[in-house]
């Protein structure tokens, strides 16, 4: 039996299990750039207007941090700039999570053992999932390029954009393969994978926002942008990415050859034989289950805030000469608003989406505890459902607050260190905390779904993605204002600029409370399944 025996069968099994996710994700990813290109054409019909957007973007360090450099002031160039970073995230993260889902999750659940006893070679599961994910990424690239070309964009650029995003998918699929071999639990594997992605993102962001070119070249997420679609394509960068993929896959293979099934590289440690006296309430249990995440996200956002806050505000004062951007700043923050405050707040508004994802993840813990059957164990004791739910929800509400404090403080520090004005720290912190009620609304949506439509709880992520897409197209002026109002984040005042209206914050808090209450009441009344 060769090490790859059964890979084909396993690949078919993967395709079958993900027959819904794969096409939805693929279509979304493939159509996204074309719709951006169409919007760009509609919004900026002249070469002049294209140039001014490009200049505006290059002058905004928060944009540089999230999206990278604009390499060409054309429809293609701006499309590549708009989707380069988010597309790499969409393909990269999803590819990575898919690989972990079909390797580590399978092993952890013991289903892999079932298969391992049949005729399945040692490397077959890894090969199968990488094959499926690589093929999906490539298909997305082909479809994306075809769509872009049929929209009238140059062939070379369209293909380069498609391939660069597919390369991001391949790279992080390979990262997923490697981390999936290292840890014993799927949660840890996902955490490690997301951490690797975030570090690469941060390196690239700081490099681009701070104008340190070599830094961007240290990150594969910088490489994918430096393929430069529509801006004098650098095809050789793709070869660089392929080498990295080959390296990572070889590493994953070597790891998988060395360890036992279900074991990780890092050996499991023994725990205490008895519980500490404090572990005696559902809240104590919830804290025990969530605390690692609270710490990890806080540290991650502190590091990110420090680096990005510093990079965005570094040496910016008085350098802005793009009139459009001054206009925009004045519009949002008033005549005497400082550009650096604007950019820092802009950055916070982007990062708040990720904090919301963390809040939702914590709330969805209720559902995963339920479907795994662990909730049964707790609820068959004296603990009532409401008390059980609230113990998790207290932490799902407080966790994002802690993370936002970490983010705000670190960003304010970064800001202060690079401008020499540490006195703005409270204001930046306030700017970060202003997002808390909006984050709670997103968390509330997840809670409401868990309580009322438990089988659709993961659709929370659909809502999150839909809001992000609405926001992106809203910024391009493609969507009606009234529709945009359903996005909680548009109501958040830009507190770094000194806006501090409490009414929208109170309103968002009420909405969040109502959604949460609905969810808890639903949970109290329904069957646990």
């Amino acid at each position, binding site marked *: 039996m060769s090490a790859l025996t059964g890979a084909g069968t396993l690949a078919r099994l993967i395709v079958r299990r993900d027959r819904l996710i794969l096409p939805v994700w693929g279509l979304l990813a493939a159509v996204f750039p074309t719709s951006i290109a169409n919007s760009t054409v509609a919004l900026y019909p002249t070469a002049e207007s294209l140039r001014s957007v490009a200049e505006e973007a290059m002058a905004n360090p928060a944009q540089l941090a999230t999206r990278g450099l604009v390499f060409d002031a054309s429809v293609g160039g701006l499309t590549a700039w708009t989707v380069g970073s988010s597309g790499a995230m969409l393909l990269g993260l999803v590819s990575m999570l898919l690989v972990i889902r079909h390797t580590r999750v399978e092993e952890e659940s013991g289903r892999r053992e079932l298969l391992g006893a049949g005729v399945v070679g040692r490397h077959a599961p890894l090969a199968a999932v990488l094959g499926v994910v690589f093929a999906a990424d490539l298909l997305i690239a082909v479809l994306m390029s075809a769509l872009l070309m049929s929209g009238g964009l140059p062939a070379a650029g369209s293909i380069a954009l498609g391939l660069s995003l597919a390369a991001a998918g391949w790279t992080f699929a390979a990262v997923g393969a490697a981390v999936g071999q290292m840890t014993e639990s799927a949660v840890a594997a996902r955490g490690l994978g997301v951490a690797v992605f975030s570090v690469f993102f941060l390196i690239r962001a700081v490099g681009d926002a701070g104008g340190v070119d070599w830094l961007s070249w240290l990150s594969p997420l910088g490489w994918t942008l430096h393929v430069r679609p529509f801006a004098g394509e650098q095809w050789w960068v793709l070869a660089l990415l392929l080498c990295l993929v080959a390296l990572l896959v070889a590493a994953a293979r070597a790891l998988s050859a060395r360890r036992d099934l279900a074991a990780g590289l890092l050996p499991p440690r*023994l*725990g*205490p*034989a008895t519980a500490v006296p404090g572990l005696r309430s559902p809240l104590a249990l919830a804290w025990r289950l969530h605390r*690692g995440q609270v710490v990890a996200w806080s540290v991650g956002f502190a590091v990110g805030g420090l680096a990005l806050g510093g990079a965005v505000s570094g040496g910016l004062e008085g350098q802005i000469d793009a009139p459009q951007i001054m206009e925009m700043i004045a519009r949002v923050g008033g005549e005497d608003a400082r550009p650096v405050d604007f950019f820092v707040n802009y950055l916070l508004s982007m990062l708040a989406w990720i904090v919301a994802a963390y809040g939702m993840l914590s709330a969805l813990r209720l559902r995963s505890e339920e479907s795994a059957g*662990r909730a049964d164990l707790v*609820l068959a*004791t004296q603990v009532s459902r409401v008390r059980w739910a609230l113990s998790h929800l207290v932490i799902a509400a407080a966790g994002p607050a802690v993370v936002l404090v970490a983010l705000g403080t670190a960003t304010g520090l970064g800001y202060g260190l690079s401008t020499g004005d540490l006195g703005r720290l409270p204001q930046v912190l306030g700017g970060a905390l202003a997002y808390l009620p909006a984050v709670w609304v997103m968390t509330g949506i997840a809670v409401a779904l868990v309580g009322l439509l438990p089988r659709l709880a993961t659709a929370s992520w659909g809502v999150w993605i839909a809001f992000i897409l609405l926001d992106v197209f809203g910024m391009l002026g493609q969507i009606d204002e009234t529709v945009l109002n359903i996005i909680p984040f548009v109501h958040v005042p830009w507190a770094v600029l000194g806006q501090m209206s409490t009414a929208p914050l109170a309103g968002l808090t009420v909405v969040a409370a109502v959604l949460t209450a609905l969810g808890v009441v639903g949970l109290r009344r329904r069957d*646990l399944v």
Partner: protein
Amino acid sequence: MTNAISVSGLVKTFGRTRALDGLDLTVGTGEVHGFLGPNGAGKSTTIRILLGLMRADSGKASLLGGDPWDDATDLHRRLAYVPGDVTLWPNLSGGEVIDLLGRLRGGIDAQRRSSLLERFELDPRKKGRAYSKGNRQKVALVAALASDVELLILDEPTSGLDPLMEAVFRDCVAEEKARGRTVLLSSHILSEVEALCDRVSIIRGGSVVETGTLVELRHLTRTSVTAELAHEPDGLTGLPGIHDLRVEGNRVSCQVEPAHLDELFGRLAALGLRNVTAAPPTLEDLFMRHYRTAPQHEVAR
């Protein structure tokens, strides 16, 4: 209160599946009650309704004198539950889970805890993800057995245990019974129920098809008889109440209904008995009788 559990006409549907179809169940206080049925018969569903984790579509259920749904938290102080498929928190050690569940239930007997750990040969320092199915079950069992409760609800608690541990489990349940605790033991392991239970309810397709003490149930069933005769047997075929008759030379084996034992033995005696064994039906026989006619669509959950 003489009945710890009393359930009548319980109905529960999941979409088109009718998981419980008018189920009746009575468990007296202080009794060890076997809840026996094939996979998908509705044992776990019944138990989850009794625990207030699910609500029945119709029918009445009372648990320790209260309503399983409305009084759930109060009732749970007085019972302990071991699920059929125990999942633990991957990063909590077994010992931590035992202590936590015990405390959430209102207290745990430290001495019993350590003696149970020893008897079940369980290492409490391992993390949840490192335990096998059997060991996860042991964690839940120790937590349940070490708490001071009136009622134990055990859903196929030995399905992952090896025979040695199964024996330990039997001893433990016998001790619980001696202390006057009530036990509802769902199982498809017949010998276990036979060894432990005062009364048995057999469930199939969502309703109880037979219930009673083992003696009562045996009463309803046939006895297996094997005999060696002095002469070639004849005239046995026509006897009433005889089943599965097999004749090999002078050897005869068959099953006979209790009401017709007299006639059979009268005839055998007339043929010259040389050797005879008559075995009471095992629970296995009982069970097989109900299973053989089980509808095809019942599949494991």
